[in-house]
């Protein structure tokens, strides 16, 4: 199986880590594709869905992550608030229906505050969008989403967070609410061995959906 998610971790401009992984399409993602090719009417053309890839989210959950033992992080991002009320380390792309993956498990903010999920400020930003998100086509038969996470300019790493052990990510369509930690328009999900970023880190994700 070819990995379709490439992750590059750079510090001070130098590559320090490179990982690859393979995503799963969520049920929402498969239904989204179904609706995208379907019209309820042709006069005028009325597609059942009119959503495109636009957002990206990061988290510290999945079977390859979970609660960190760092009280600052675990207080801000406590387990049990996802739709499955998991312990924070249960989402497994190998078994994506047990529990059913419809959101990130322990999403982290791009920017904002540090309140735990239930009391997070409505202005906290949980998803990365343009200009940190853009599309290319590595082949004619794929779309590659490029995402830049720049902790040097405060993405994810801001007071009181000095490090963040990332282990999951998701792609979302343009209907996603960037201020919602648990947005359910997650179309694809990936987990990976922990990448711990700090204020000198830049991450580049290249996420290709191939047909």
């Amino acid at each position, binding site marked *: 199986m070819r990995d379709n998610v490439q992750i590059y971790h750079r510090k001070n401009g130098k590559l320090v880590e490179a990982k690859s992984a393979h995503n799963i*399409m969520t049920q929402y993602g498969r239904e989204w594709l*179904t609706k995208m*090719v*379907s019209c309820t009417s042709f006069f005028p053309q009325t597609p059942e869905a009119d959503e495109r890839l636009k957002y990206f989210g990061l988290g510290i959950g999945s079977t390859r992550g979970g609660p960190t033992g760092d009280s600052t992080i675990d207080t801000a991002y406590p387990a049990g608030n996802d739709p499955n009320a998991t312990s924070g380390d249960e989402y497994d792309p190998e078994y994506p229906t047990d529990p059913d993956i419809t959101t990130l498990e322990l999403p982290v903010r791009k920017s904002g505050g540090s309140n735990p999920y239930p009391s997070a400020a409505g202005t906290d930003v949980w998803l990365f969008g343009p200009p940190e998100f853009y599309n290319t086509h590595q082949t004619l038969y794929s779309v590659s989403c490029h995402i830049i996470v720049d902790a040097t300019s405060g993405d994810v790493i801001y007071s009181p967070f000095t490090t963040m052990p990332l282990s999951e990510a998701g792609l979302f369509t343009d209907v996603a609410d960037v201020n919602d930690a648990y947005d359910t328009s997650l179309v694809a999900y990936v987990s990976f061995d922990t990448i711990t970023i700090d204020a000198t880190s830049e991450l580049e994700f290249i996420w290709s959906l191939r047909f």
Partner: protein
Amino acid sequence: MQIFEDIEVKYNLSIIARERGKIVDRRDGHNIFVNLGREWIAALISLQSFSPDTPENDYRPKYMGFGIGGAQQVSVNANSSPITPPYSGSNLQTDTDRTVDTLERPVRISGSSSAYPGVAGDLWLGQIQAPVSHPQSTQAQFRRLLGQGEISYAPFLSVPLSEVGLFTSDKNPEEYLNTLIAYDTFDTISKTTAVEIEVVWTFRF
């Protein structure tokens, strides 16, 4: 749910011929989502610019087209009058070749009996039914019913169909050669004025 290497668009095609309501012929099988289709769907889900969000394309499956080409054509009538010379051509295309981009020997839904490229007013593609149906939430089913007078009209009273294509909404149904997104060639089914043909094309994601 399945872990995909690629996002695989699985597809089934069912072609049913009925005469006075009774099934007289039937073909079931898999067809191919050709390279142009893979290219189309990759662009369909992508934005080419943001603020305002501008899709790379906004075309959806809208038409089916039929032909007498394809490697599974077995009728001698495909190469004799009155089918030829109006619908002359070869029978080389397979439904395992992703580089197929058009029907090989398209036939009109209605119109004249002129040779390719036909004349103004000829209709080469038939619109599928709307709304698209969903047997399951991850399946899209495209349907087209060919009425008794469609395709088989004078002088083409028996047309040996052997290929079908699925086309997006940007295509011109009055042009004889359009690029397609999915294709199938099948053992010949004769379309006569006594026969109605129902085509059910299912995509599964």
